């Protein structure tokens, strides 16, 4: 045999033609053909199987067996035919296809599926209902993490029952099975990878690798850890048609707690921290398990806070007034004897002020000293321009130094792209301190709540 060809026949919709064919080619066809090429080179596997199938067909031709019987025979006797049929059946249903070639090579093939979305489907752009809705980027959005590693502050939510997963791991015993099993048992959706690593002793890097493995094989999803202080709402993309099937499962798992629809009704009101729904401290573990169940089935999503800094007219006026004062009297002698450092500081401030005055004057059409100002939003406080920095400085002027220091640290999260919930975790600060700081700037912060 000089050439063989595995042919996949597709009929994708017009507008998705190229992407579907490309996906099928990259993830299934290429890998399968490569595996067959390897086995053929090893001991002529493909040729042997092809001969076997041809012989079976000839025999059937002679004996006049029906086509149904013939196909059953071929599938029973030829592992190549069986592998091809498995791929067809499983991939067409978007499942994972496991094939076993030549009694030695096991291969698992899957087409990537969308596991979560961040843009809500609208009336004119319907999407698959039931997909989890979140903007939490599990690969971490700064360069602190390596490529393709799940962020250490995330955790895993298992999409299948843990017992089932452990059984699967036990069935395919390899060297890493033991630590994988230990990880799966230790992993709780309330603890981040970092915390799991600290508690059960498996190194963080290993945990991240195993977690990525589990996510790839669709056994779990990466989520920010669930906490009763966080707020959760009924997901706008929840598939309520599935409630019918989920109610009995829920009842079997949580017989003593109120029914699923009732719980969803409670979560439908004004968003409150999840702890307000937990009747007593003793109920907490059960309710957190319920929350994990709800998130797993895409019924509930976390409502996160995002913040922007707003500069009011008063601040702008005050800064402009101060600059005018500075400009008018730059040669004033210092009021009391000052050290050289203070002098230098003043000069620096003056220089900053004059440059911001010139930028102000060039921007504003009314260079009148009583010019009108409008409120505005600072888009990137971390990379504030000179005038924005002076506004920020004016906003923090009357605050105690510890609040000022913390504010400087968290300012980079206040651009509407980062959830406030993650500041405490990322910066290693207590949540109530973050709340205190943001409370001090209450008039200057605009919050948006979404997923």
């Amino acid at each position, binding site marked *: 045999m000089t050439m063989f060809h595995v042919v996949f026949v597709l009929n994708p919709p017009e507008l998705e033609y190229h992407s579907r064919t490309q996906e099928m080619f990259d993830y299934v066809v290429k890998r399968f053909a490569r595996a067959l090429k390897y086995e053929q080179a090893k001991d002529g596997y493909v040729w042997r199987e092809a001969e076997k199938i041809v012989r079976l067909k000839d025999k059937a031709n002679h004996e006049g067996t029906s086509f149904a019987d013939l196909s059953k025979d071929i599938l029973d006797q030829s592992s190549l035919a069986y592998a091809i049929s498995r791929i067809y059946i499983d991939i067409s249903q978007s499942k994972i296809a496991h094939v076993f070639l030549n009694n030695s090579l096991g291969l698992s093939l899957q087409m990537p599926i969308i596991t979560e979305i961040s*843009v809500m489907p609208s*009336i004119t752009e319907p999407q698959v209902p039931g997909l989890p809705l979140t903007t939490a980027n599990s690969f971490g959005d700064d360069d602190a993490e390596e490529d393709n590693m799940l962020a250490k502050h995330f955790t895993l939510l298992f999409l299948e029952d843990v017992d089932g997963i452990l059984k699967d791991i036990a069935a395919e015993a390899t060297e890493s099975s033991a630590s994988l099993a230990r990880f799966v048992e230790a992993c709780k959706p309330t603890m981040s990878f970092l915390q799991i690593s600290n508690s059960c002793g498996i190194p963080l890097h290993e945990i991240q690798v195993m977690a990525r493995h589990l996510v790839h094989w669709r056994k779990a999803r990466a989520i920010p850890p669930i906490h009763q202080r966080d707020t959760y709402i*009924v997901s706008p993309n929840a598939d309520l048609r599935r409630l019918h099937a989920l109610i009995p499962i829920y009842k079997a798992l949580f017989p003593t707690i109120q029914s699923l629809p009732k719980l969803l009704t409670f979560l439908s009101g004004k968003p409150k921290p999840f702890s307000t729904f937990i009747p007593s401290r003793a109920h907490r573990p059960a309710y957190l398990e319920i929350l994990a169940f709800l998130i797993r089935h895409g019924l509930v999503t976390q409502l996160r806070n995002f913040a922007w800094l*707003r500069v009011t007219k008063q601040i702008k006026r005050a800064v402009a007034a101060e600059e005018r004062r500075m400009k008018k009297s730059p040669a004033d002698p210092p009021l009391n004897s000052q050290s050289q450092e203070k002098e230098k500081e003043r000069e620096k401030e003056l220089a900053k002020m004059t440059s911001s005055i010139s930028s102000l004057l060039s921007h504003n059409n009314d260079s009148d000293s009583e010019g009108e100002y409008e409120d505005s939003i600072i888009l990137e406080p971390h990379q504030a321009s000179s005038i924005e920095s002076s506004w920020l400085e004016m906003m923090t002027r009357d605050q105690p130094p510890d609040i000022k220091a913390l504010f400087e640290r968290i300012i980079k999260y206040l651009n*509407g*792209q980062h959830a406030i919930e993650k500041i405490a975790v990322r910066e290693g600060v207590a949540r109530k301190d973050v709340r205190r700081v943001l409370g001090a700037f209450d008039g200057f912060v605009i919050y948006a709540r979404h*997923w």
Partner: protein
Amino acid sequence: MIKSIFYSRFHPGKGHYSPQSVSDGNHPAPITPPLPPTSPPPTSPPLFDFETVSEYIIPKQELCDRLVTVCTNKYRVLGYPVCLEDRKYERNEFIFNFAIVLDEGVEYSTYKSVVRKVAKLFKALEEQSGFLSNEVTAVGVFALIEQVLEDLNNYSECMIPINESNTINIKLFPTYAPPPQVKAFHVPVCTVQLENLMDVNWDLTMQKIVPFIDGINSVRRISELADADYNLTRKCIEHLLYYGCLVMVDVFQFGAIYACTAEISILVQDPSLQEECQAYVSYSSPRTPFPFLLQLYTSLTQGLTLKKWCMENATKLKGIDVRRFISFGIVKGFLYRSHKYPVPAEEKVDKASPLAKYLDGGHHFDEICTDLQASEKEVIGMFEGRDVQIVHR
């Protein structure tokens, strides 16, 4: 954008042979095999290697007279090989192919009909007058395909005369996605001036309903006001949606609940969108500054009806048209409507009752109220005896 068009034929002496090819100005000529001496020699590397795919450009008879696409070197070659059998040819057959070269990832469904049309045209020409096999007339093919390439890339259409009795007429029609189903409770909002585009030749139902599409009436209401059949009205609206003349929003009511989506950050980062918002939403001359609008938008939350929200924010809403405020958010995607769904508290539902079909979790109150032409209070009254929970999502 078409990268190149080329004409190739089977030459009995030279094998596969591509005598004419034209490329888009910025891209190099595609072919490696020998060109006739009149063509300029290729000065830059070819787009792809002709030899490797020549079997699919000039294929065996079985693949002829159908669309054959080959992807090679990140380019897609769309061809329609034609085979003409006649004793006058050497080897009794004449195979040719006018093929278009595009980037692999480009959406190409509109070009399929172009290739087919060109192939059929030249097949007819060849059968009538031997246009392609006659060496004299075949020379004009180069200028022809050059013109087609230029016109299709610049104007998306071309009309080129070949001789006194034949022209090439091609127009590229974009392929749109099929529209989602339009329901009775959807409210269409025009994005184009339909009255100006409409003329007496338009469909009668369409002419009747267009005056009532005002961004406030639901589809059901439009069909009632226009005295038109509901299904025909729905079809008309679906057509307008398909061509991008409309967007859909929900029925505006003060009992509705709205909340922000993750797209609100797009509004904050785009100053032109902010200008548009301020202009659309304020009705008196001092326009509300954007941060106040942002504050209002973000104060909308799940579980809070619009009525309560208006009452809470009465002072801040001076000079702002609430209906426009909400519909701007819905159309641009940074607000969403939180609908109420009745679900049975237990899994068993009394199948006999007329309301049973609404209790599967797929129908919200807007839909039920529109279908039954009843107010929300009345519908809740109808659900009284049964064990029904209302879930907002």
